[in-house]
């Protein structure tokens, strides 16, 4: 027997012992996935559901693993967003089994008798298959100016000194900064479905609150004043679908409640003067 460098005769013997002791191949566990399909490049195509069968024994545990397996082995035209596969980038947000989550964090339901239904995020314009147009969502995020704004004016000394913050003030940002802007919450909100042009939605509002409550930011009153109309905040009717569906376990409903409380208490006349100065 010729050996390659480093190989032991023992490994061959144990390998043979293992394979002879191995059981017969496990019966395939076939799970059905019903996926929303729509192709913009097929003229006159209507959105429809397409069912795929996946052997769970040769597939990873998460829905994203199944989607990738389908795309690799069965249907390369299946289109969906994905990146980190660990629940931190927010790309693979979609409606699985009736609820919005991240596909990479959603375990496949083992019940082989039921098909898992996969839809794109609800009430969004569909670019293709499971890919929604997120531009409105991002534009709304941009509109709340999600960056630190200081009032001392000069840009010369930025970065020279650290902006100090007490541990208590830093703790106020916990549960707010972790948002990955996956849009699961906003697209679970019926109010956002009916008013996505004017109502900002839970994700954007939670980030607005994150900047309002950051002790280092000097523009709290102006940020609150920006919300002084019938639609930006007040379309929230505390339905609380947002908190129920957040795949990161955050609470946008609470953030919106706190914004409403702040709006009731702050000095709006002063803020108006400041904003228009």
């Amino acid at each position, binding site marked *: 027997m010729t050996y390659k460098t480093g190989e032991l005769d023992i490994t061959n013997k144990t390998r043979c012992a293992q394979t002879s002791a191995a059981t017969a191949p496990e019966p395939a566990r076939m799970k059905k996935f019903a996926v*929303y399909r*729509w192709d*913009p490049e097929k003229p006159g195509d*209507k*959105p429809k559901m397409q069912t795929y069968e996946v052997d769970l024994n040769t597939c990873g545990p998460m829905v994203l693993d199944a989607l990738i397996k389908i795309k690799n082995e069965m249907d390369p035209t299946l289109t969906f967003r994905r990146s980190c596969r660990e629940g931190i980038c927010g790309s693979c947000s979609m*409606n699985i*089994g*009736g*609820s919005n989550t991240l596909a990479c964090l959603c375990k496949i339901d083992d019940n082989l008798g039921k098909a898992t*239904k996969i*839809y*794109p*995020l*609800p*009430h*969004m*314009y*569909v670019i293709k298959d499971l890919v*929604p*147009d997120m*531009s*409105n969502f*991002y*534009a*709304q995020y*941009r*509109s709340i*100016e999600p960056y630190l704004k200081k009032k001392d004016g000069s840009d010369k000394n930025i970065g020279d000194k650290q902006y100090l913050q007490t541990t208590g003030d830093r703790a106020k940002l916990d549960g707010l900064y972790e948002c990955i802007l996956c849009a699961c919450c906003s697209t*679970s909100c*019926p109010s956002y*479905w*009916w*008013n996505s*042009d*004017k109502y900002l939605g839970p994700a954007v509002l939670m980030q607005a609150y994150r900047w309002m409550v950051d002790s280092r930011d000097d523009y709290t009153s*102006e940020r609150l*004043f*920006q919300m*002084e*109309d*019938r*639609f*930006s905040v007040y379309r929230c*009717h*505390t*339905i*609380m*679908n947002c*908190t*129920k*569906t957040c795949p990161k376990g955050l*609470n946008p*409903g*609470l953030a919106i*409640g*706190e914004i*409403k*409380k702040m709006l009731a208490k702050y000095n709006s006349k002063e803020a108006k003067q400041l*904003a*228009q100065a």
Partner: protein
Amino acid sequence: MAAMIRASFGKGSALLTNNAALLSSRLQPVVVTQLSHTSTRSQTGDIAYKEMEEFWEKNRRLNRPLSPHLRIYNPELTSMLSLCHRATGIAMAVTVPFVAATLLGLPGDFSSYIEYIKDLHLNPAILTAAKYVLAFPICYHYINGIRHLAWDWAIGFDLKTTYQSGYFVMALALLVTAGFVHLL
């Protein structure tokens, strides 16, 4: 333009509700710039609102389908209780004035109509069911209203408390309804 902005702050708000109705029928939304505080908007805000307008224009032009929503989304306790609150509210807001106005207009007083219903000799099960239907909205809406008041003070927003209070409110509302029907 200034008039439209002034209108957006409360007084001319019919303009906004009309446009909301238009949007839900997927016609062109007109009001995005009306809401912005154009006098105080920064450059970032300008870019954002321009992007929003481009979004609506592009998606209308490409005639993209809207992903399904009501028919596919899971009925959650949160959304179902909220729907119940809205439905009972609308039901009461419509029937109470209507019944009151009708009774005002019709001859005889309230008790003569109760006598009339008694004389119909309806199956008591139907009468009990009708009493449940009449009593439930006020009980549920009132008790869930207290939950809403707590939320207005940002109390009880975490998911566990929301669910616990939700189950409690529904159970209590059914209990109080049963109490009204059978004990009064």
